[in-house]
């Protein structure tokens, strides 16, 4: 009986870690893509995710007022929100980020990093407080039945039971699909080749006729779109408000660094690993030390592989 209990706990925690890790991975992939191509650390990524959550909530409220179809609608809305945030990302880059990155930062003492830091941190504060003024302080979520439903699996004649939450499972599948699409886009399309060229060497890419500024804008847009999809998925099972982005942003940074700066797949796997460590640590440590366990693993990995698990040393991916 006790053995069955341990097996059940292990299976449950592994499932929780995998499902949550996929969403962390998607968030990390968005941030990792922006950093990998533009070398800009977007401190406002969490706040853009928060905005996407509200956009998802509004979309679902308009299209599916009832709970029964809310989850399926949320998944469709996530795609629409991704497109919207691609546009928002491109606009933000054109209006703000391009002023402190790319060609304009060439020749500055720190390659524009101080400006980027101040701009994205400032943007994060503006979005947080703007969100509070616009949406209020009440935590909200996308009301749906999938969040309280699970598939139940029985093993060892019912001694071991595994519950798989439907909202988290579909959200994890959505996350994997979004990352695979991005990897395909990067590997198999013309725009992907341009993005990789710009990531490797922006000056050489410029000489080869690549519009570096447009490539940066595209990267920023895709990065926000990926995080927006993650935001809408999370909003189906997690109450959020204007400050929710901050809860996830540390995980995003850790995942990107752990996976290897500049690699989309690496960032996804970094996020997945964080999800797994966060949950698996509860097998041996008290649950309040979940995030401590994450950062112990984070430091251990960096000690052995400073470039991250899937990074390529000083080379750009």
């Amino acid at each position, binding site marked *: 009986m006790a053995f069955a209990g341990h097996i059940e706990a292990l299976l449950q925690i592994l*499932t929780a870690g995998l499902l949550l890790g996929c969403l962390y991975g998607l968030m990390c992939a968005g941030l990792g893509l922006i950093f990998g191509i533009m070398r800009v650390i977007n401190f406002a990524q969490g706040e853009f995710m928060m905005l996407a959550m509200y956009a998802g909530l509004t979309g679902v409220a308009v299209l599916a007022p009832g*709970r029964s179809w809310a989850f399926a609608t949320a998944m469709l809305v996530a795609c629409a929100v991704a497109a919207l945030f691609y546009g928002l990302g491109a606009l933000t880059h054109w209006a703000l980020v391009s002023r402190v990155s790319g060609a304009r930062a060439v020749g500055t003492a720190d390659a524009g990093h101080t400006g980027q830091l101040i701009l994205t941190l400032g943007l994060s504060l503006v979005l947080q407080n703007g969100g509070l003024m616009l949406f*209020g302080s*009440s935590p909200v979520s996308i009301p749906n039945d999938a969040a309280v439903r699970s598939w139940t699996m029985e093993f060892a004649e019912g001694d071991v039971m595994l519950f798989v939450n439907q909202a988290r499972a579909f959200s994890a599948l959505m996350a994997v699909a979004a990352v695979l699409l991005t990897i395909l886009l990067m590997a198999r399309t013309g725009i992907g080749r341009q993005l990789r060229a710009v990531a490797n060497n922006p000056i050489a890419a410029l000489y080869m006729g690549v519009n570096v500024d447009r490539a940066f804008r595209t990267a920023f847009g895709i990065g926000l779109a990926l995080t927006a999809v993650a935001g809408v998925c999370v909003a189906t099972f997690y109450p959020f408000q204007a400050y929710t982005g901050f809860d996830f942003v540390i995980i995003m940074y850790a995942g990107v660094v752990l996976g290897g700066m500049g690699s989309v797949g690496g960032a996804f796997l970094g996020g997945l690993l964080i999800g797994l460590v966060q949950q698996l640590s509860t097998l041996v440590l008290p649950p309040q030390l979940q995030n401590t366990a994450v950062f112990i693993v984070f430091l251990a990995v960096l000690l052995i592989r400073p470039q991250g698990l899937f990074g390529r040393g000083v080379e750009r991916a």
Partner: protein
Amino acid sequence: MMTITRRALMGSALAMPAIIHGTAHAQPSAIKLALLAPLSGPFARQGELMRLGAELGVEDVNRNGGIKALGGAKLDLAIADAGANVEQVTAATQRLAADRDLIAGMGAWASSFTLAATEVTERAKLPWVTLSWADSITERGFHYVIATSPPSSKIIPAALEPLLALAGKSVGKKPGTIACINDDTAVNQANMEPLRNGGFAKLGLKTVMDENFSVPLSDAAPLIQRLRRARPDLVLLGTTATSDSRLLLQTLTEFGLGQGKVPVIAPSANWGTPEMLKNMGTTYLEGVIGVAGNWSSKQQAALNQDLLQRSKEPWLIQDTLSLYGHVQLIADALERAGKADRDALMAALLATDTTEGPAKLFLGDRLRFEKNGRRANPVPAVFQWKGGKPLTVLPEADAEAELSWPQPG
């Protein structure tokens, strides 16, 4: 035609200070109170609810003629944002304490926030009224703190005793085992300390699970899986953030333990907020029992109705009701003190002993305070979700509905 001479002008100029002075005497200067509440950050909603209560309280005192003992002086509320952490609380309180016109303050919601704020206000000798629960708030030998809620060490045992007795009557067997899942905030750890140290044993309960987590919870499945294996007769969920409350209840439901299968007792006001209903829906909340420092009373139905209309909230919870009560308590003490002086006000607050006026705004009959500033014989409020509303079920004199032991339906 009137001629304005130099002499007349000089005379008018000389008379002006006397005229202004006279006007100032006719209009007594406003009495400044501070409200320190989290108005930004993850607890901003609770801060908004507090602000609502304090503003309504000030509005009512001023509408009824201000502080009569001080010539009808009006109350003036200075609002400060406590932010999201103790460092921000300390900085905000230091700014407040520097204002020598302040007579008293209220806040700061979370016990950890109030502990930090009162470190500063005690040095400034600024009377501070709070709804926070942690025992330590009034056990540091401070002289300028008033706490109107029951302390952590008493609130859960006082609520559990009648609940367990009712369970015995309803299902024929008194619950014997309990599982506890708490966040690691000051208030929930303070709540648990006496229970862990013999409190549960005194109530005849055996702890089969006792886990803590850090806010925010990323996934409740590992905790609820353990709870399912432990098979408790009831579960105590101590959470501060609505997101954690929802995740825990959602996962309980998902694991087939919700809707009364394992009765839920939640010692936190956030379980009775309108947001919980919006996020969870009526079905999943039905029967959940919450414990708080204050809640609405059937004895104050008319006042509650008036406050509801003005606040535009669907119902009022501890954070709004207590802050409304705090303003009335300070106003009552100012009437008795007869002067706008911090020490005189504190002495009057400590000397409060009434069953009328501000006493009606807190549950229980009589409002008086012990020497340390904690309310004497406080009564915890027990509410239960019934038909999509968290109704007061205990104490019986204030109950809006009858308490029923949750059973799977």
